[in-house]
């Protein structure tokens, strides 16, 4: 994960948010490019071919970029959202946001028996071409955006990212945790995932696969004790995962951008493939808290340890420059 997107994942304090939102509401056209990328696994110097979304550089890059999850997009609740897509790949690409209602323009093929099959959920950018997508009156919440073309192939190749619309009144601070998987065997020659061939070996949060012995990814977002923190979960993987916040309970308030009539207090939550969830957590003690996949995608290319694990850093109040180790309150340190 590069620095820019890590920062974006951590989200932004209140003052900055205000500025951000005033900009977003006036114009919400976002420009993306679908490009070839390379991702270097934590245990190997040999990069893996990926496809990914990047901020549109205006023309196609001359060489594969360093892959990451697509840039975090933001939108305003109730506004219209437009995404312009440049396709730098060799096959058609499109963008869908599963949680937002919209009018789709499916693309079809006719098979050998004359049966018409949808191969893309909506209109596509041809190789080297562009396409534009608009969602009217978008709803608030956390969403995935991903390729709607041959999703069995293009999504696991890396064509996904997160969209955050509006904010919840309960929480001023938020963190985003985007879960995904990589099966290197399907990437050398990009191939469709099928029931029997899909066997992911890398398990990522925010584009990073923790590997045993390496520093554990920390998500801190300047989150303070005794303040509500919104944890936004998204799963771009093809399998379900079960995030557990070790120690405290969270309050699950929404899925796919839909508020529950009654929130549910849980320390674990099923994060199905393609699902987004929003949870509120009010830490009562500062320190470092672990969040990991209890479906035990806790390995990295077969090596035990590693996988879907992050630390959430909760600062004491008032802020101090460093956090003294505290072994209490469910915190790890």
């Amino acid at each position, binding site marked *: 994960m590069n620095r820019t997107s890590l920062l974006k994942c951590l989200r932004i304090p209140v003052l900055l948010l205000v500025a951000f939102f005033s900009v977003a509401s006036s114009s919400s056209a976002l420009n993306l490019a679908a490009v070839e990328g390379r991702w270097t696994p934590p245990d190997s110097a040999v990069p893996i071919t990926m496809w990914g979304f990047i901020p549109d550089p205006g023309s196609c890059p001359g060489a594969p970029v360093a892959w990451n999850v697509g840039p975090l997009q933001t939108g305003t609740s109730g506004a219209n959202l437009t995404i312009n897509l440049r396709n730098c790949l060799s096959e058609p690409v499109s963008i869908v946001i599963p949680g937002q209602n919209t009018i789709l323009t499916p693309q079809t093929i006719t098979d050998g028996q004359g049966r018409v099959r949808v191969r893309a959920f909506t209109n596509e950018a041809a190789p080297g071409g562009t396409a534009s997508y608009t969602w009217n009156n978008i709803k608030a919440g956390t969403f995935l955006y991903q390729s709607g073309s041959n999703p069995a192939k293009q999504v696991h190749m890396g064509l996904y990212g997160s969209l955050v619309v509006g904010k919840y009144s309960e929480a001023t601070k938020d963190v985003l945790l985007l879960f995904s998987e990589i099966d290197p065997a399907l990437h050398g020659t990009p191939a469709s995932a099928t029931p029997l061939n899909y066997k992911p070996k890398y398990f990522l949060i925010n584009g990073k696969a923790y590997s045993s012995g390496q520093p554990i990814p920390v998500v801190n977002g300047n989150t303070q004790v005794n303040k509500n923190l919104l944890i936004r979960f998204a799963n771009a993987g093809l399998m*379900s995962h079960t995030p557990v916040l070790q120690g405290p*309970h969270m309050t699950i308030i929404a899925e796919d951008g839909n508020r529950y009539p009654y929130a549910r207090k849980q320390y674990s939550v099923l994060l199905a493939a393609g699902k987004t969830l929003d949870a509120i957590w009010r830490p009562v*003690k500062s320190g470092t808290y672990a969040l990991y996949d*209890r479906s*035990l995608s806790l390995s990295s290319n*077969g090596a035990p340890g590693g996988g879907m*694990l992050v630390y959430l850093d909760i600062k004491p109040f008032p802020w101090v420059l460093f956090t003294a180790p505290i072994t209490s309150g469910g915190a*790890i340190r």
Partner: protein
Amino acid sequence: MHMRVIKTAFQVTVLFAAFLLLLTVNAGAMINGITGTTFNLTAKTGHISTPDGGSYLIWGYANGTGLAQYPGPTLIVNQGALVRVKLTNNLTVAGGGTPPNVSIVFPGQQVTIASADPGVPGILTKEAASGKTVTYQFTATNPGTYTYYSGTDSALQIEMGFMGTIIVRPTKGANFAYNHQDAKFDRETLFLLTEMDPRIHQAVENFGPAGVVGTDYLANYFPVLWFINGRAAPDTMAEPMAPWLPYQPYNCMPMMHPGEKLLMRVVGGGRDLHPFHHHGSHARVIARDGQLLASAPNTGPDLSTEVFTIQSQPGSTIDAIFEWTGKGLGWDIYGTAADGPEFIHTCNDTIVVDGFDDATHEYCADHDKPFPVTLPTNQELAFGGFYSGSPFLGSLNSLPPGQGGLNPNGGYTYMWHSHTEKEMVNYDIFPGGMMTMLLIEAPGVPIN
């Protein structure tokens, strides 16, 4: 496919089990486990066995100097207690390497580490190095069903067997799941669901934990064994603490009478989702992860709903209350005079007027309604081992030689199992694996 051989294998073992059950005291009313406030757990190796003759290395938490257990001891504590769990690492591994650190995490609990046994830093918590001890402590603030499991190299160590259940009994009393009248139960049963990929256990048995490095077993996980409370059916129905299952002390044998409330504590102990289907009727899911499904404090489980299949998620717990009366079947479950003089009975709904007999909980609107169809002749039927020979509760009828026999009081039996049916097998023998039977005994038949 090979129906008969299954019946035979099933019958022999279960018959033995059922026989022992009759002699066992208090096996079904309350959950087996260890009580107190301080628990001395020891990480050790052991070997579990499966009904098809398999034997597998496990790593388990032992109660003090006892044997490793799969799953670990069920810790039963009272609400408000300061709980201390002292974990000593006596694990040994093949291959001559240093045994790995071990640890415990307690989801939903605010854990601190005792200064006397601080352990060494780990990724999810403090750990006990080989031969050393770490002590965790927490106050059991909230009642409910919780789980505990390894916080060290969890993908490997939970699979190897480091997991278990914690039950926090509420201040309101031991026959309540939570501090509310609607969380009252008559009986309770634990359903800790796990699966196992023997490749991992064999690799560790042969080479120690290094044996899985270089394989894709942890990522491309492929379980072929499934358990409730550490046993595969029909061992689930054998007595608890059976001497022939020394590393698997817990059984899973839900039993009840009509009209009673059975609390199901369902724990996702492994890494897979399981759809736990409880035949017989719906169950009301009242809590998840130790939290009553309540819209506000003191409302009781006003957000609870009824399900016929409990979706058990890894690491999570579900509390559900199951009831059965046979209400609305449209025929008298105790038979009528037309079936013979021994079936003559009354239905008295006078003291508590609720539509049910005050003593037996028979649904009076169905009283004396005849059995609605004619059953085929015995030659046209195959009989289950748990079939009493009669469609009526508490009654027995003769069956061809060698048939039935596992249900000596003529109870009603229901299969409770993973509805991912490939999980209720012992390799190619069905039924087995993640499966047990609920036994509803007729009123007046003593349970235990």
